[in-house]
């Protein structure tokens, strides 16, 4: 019988990320190097690169996005890590979260003491429709895609199921977007690090400059209801309900817990983790919750010996605004059907009882799909160590959770990190 415990403790002692955005002239390896160097610089007592035993790289589809396969040894080469074993991990948008898990398992096994885990994706070389098709390969191309589904479409369908069951409206999801853009406005690494109100004003100014009729929006919500300013992508989801197409990389350093103090006096400990898999969206018993997320969360809480109430803050997979609401229920922060009320009441805002996506989330920070899971861990590392700058959540903070979903929940991976000092 499996113990579902790590054979030895694992600690996070370094974290870095590139800016997320659209970067012409930069390839995956260029972004990965930026994140890697920032990770090295974040190690309080420094690290000699020769101590690194292995590299794990989350990446969804460099093959289709850049025409480059076999990407892990290239990342090792460009960071000077050859000849260490370099492994690419692919589980769609959960690639990087699963890479973190594989890195943790490798250290816990005793095989390695020091492991680098990164994630990278370079998406913006392709035209939007090709990106849409590439992302669609993360769904079931035999039985879902021929129906006409796209990724925004899947989450929009989950939204209609959720709205019909619990009474949420499209405005609920808009409020999640407003909140995440507010958080992202304090994150210098964010792709769209501006409040919705700022984006709205920029649009007005642009109309004035071009001599076009100047739109009059009374509020952010009115702006978000405007079909021209915020077009429908897949009803009920509009442009500002969707995370952007992004380039970016993120890298963390994992070591065995007994070695952690060699690198820092403030290591972050892996307290719990969980992962589960599932079939196509239509193959599940319910459409307004993600069963793999519930299972992954339960595993992580059990391993950490805590309950959802103990989690101080979470970075959840808000690829679409509705996904954050569903995640907040799947992770047990709120009862089923109550997550949308919590979102409307500000419980998940930075000053609420359960802050979600202090980084701005995938929505504002950006979603380079194969990097996002590590990007979440970078935020938790910084928040737990009090290094999140203007967006630092006032403490004390003990537990931070990450929730990274692949597809519509064919994969979910959850980690709980703990500050013990």
């Amino acid at each position, binding site marked *: 019988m499996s113990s579902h415990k790590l054979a030895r403790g694992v600690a996070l002692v370094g974290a870095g990320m590139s800016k997320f955005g659209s970067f012409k002239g930069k390839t995956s390896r260029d972004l990965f190097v930026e994140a890697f160097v920032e990770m090295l610089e974040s190690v309080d007592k420094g690290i000699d690169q020769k101590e690194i035993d292995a590299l794990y790289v989350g990446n969804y589809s460099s093959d289709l996005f850049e025409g480059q396969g076999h990407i892990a040894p290239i990342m090792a080469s460009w960071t000077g890590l050859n000849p260490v074993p370099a492994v690419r991990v692919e589980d769609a948008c959960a690639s990087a979260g699963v890479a973190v898990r594989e890195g943790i398992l490798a250290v816990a096994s005793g095989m390695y003491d020091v492991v680098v885990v990164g994630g990278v994706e370079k998406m913006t070389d392709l035209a939007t429709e090709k990106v849409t098709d590439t992302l*669609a390969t993360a769904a079931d191309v035999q039985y879902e895609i*021929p129906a*006409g589904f796209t990724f925004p479409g899947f989450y929009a369908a989950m939204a209609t199921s959720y709205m019909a069951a619990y009474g949420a409206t499209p405005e609920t999801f808009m409020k999640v977007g407003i909140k995440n853009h507010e958080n992202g406005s304090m994150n210098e690494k964010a792709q769209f690090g501006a409040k919705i109100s700022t984006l709205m004003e920029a649009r007005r100014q642009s109309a004035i400059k071009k001599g076009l009729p100047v739109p009059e929006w009374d509020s952010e919500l009115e702006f978000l209801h405007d079909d021209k300013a915020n077009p*429908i*992508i897949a*009803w009920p989801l509009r442009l500002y309900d969707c995370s952007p197409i992004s380039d970016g990389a993120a890298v963390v350093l994992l070591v065995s817990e007994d070695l952690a103090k060699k690198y820092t006096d403030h290591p972050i400990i892996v307290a719990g983790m969980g992962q589960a898999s599932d079939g196509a*969206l239509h193959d599940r018993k319910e459409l307004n919750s993600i069963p793999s997320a519930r299972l992954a969360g339960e595993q992580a809480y059990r391993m950490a010996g805590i309950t959802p109430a103990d989690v101080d803050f979470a970075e959840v997979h808000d690829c679409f605004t509705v996904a954050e609401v569903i995640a907040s229920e799947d992770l047990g922060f709120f009862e089923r059907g109550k997550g949308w009320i919590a979102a409307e009441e500000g419980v998940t805002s930075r000053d609420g009882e359960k802050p979600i996506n202090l980084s701005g989330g995938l929505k504002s920070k950006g979603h380079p799909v194969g990097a996002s899971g590590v990007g979440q861990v970078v935020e938790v590392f910084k928040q737990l160590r009090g290094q999140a700058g203007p967006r630092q959540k006032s403490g004390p903070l003990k537990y931070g959770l990450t929730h990274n979903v692949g597809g519509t929940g064919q994969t979910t991976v959850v980690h709980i990190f703990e500050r013990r000092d």
Partner: protein
Amino acid sequence: MENQFTHAAFSNYLNEHRLMGSRDKGNGAVFCPPRPIDPENHSSEMEWLEFKGTGKLQAFTIIYIGSSMMIAAGYDRKNPYCVGIVKLDEGPMISGLILGVDVFHPESIKIGASFKAKFIDRGEAEAQKSFLAFEPV
């Protein structure tokens, strides 16, 4: 075992405008699309079953930015399409294009409403293929 419950077999039936799935000979559990192994009891003793094609809408969306395949089929921002998940009367849920609904008034489309299968043929001659869609009963 040689697996006959393949996507090719399902597609061939679909091209004949038949919605076929599999049934576990032991416990009678039914699957559409067909599965070679029952995920509950792990039995691979399956037989083919024809589904009536009727069911109830469980979730839907109106897609304005479609996949390449749907753009090629003539859909765009001005001509968006509805896609949804239907729970077949026999039990399984399946994805399909939803026809015969007012895509510009999504609030008129009701979850729980009854739909029936309609087979859409696309492409010419030997390249012709059928796709599963649903329309209101």
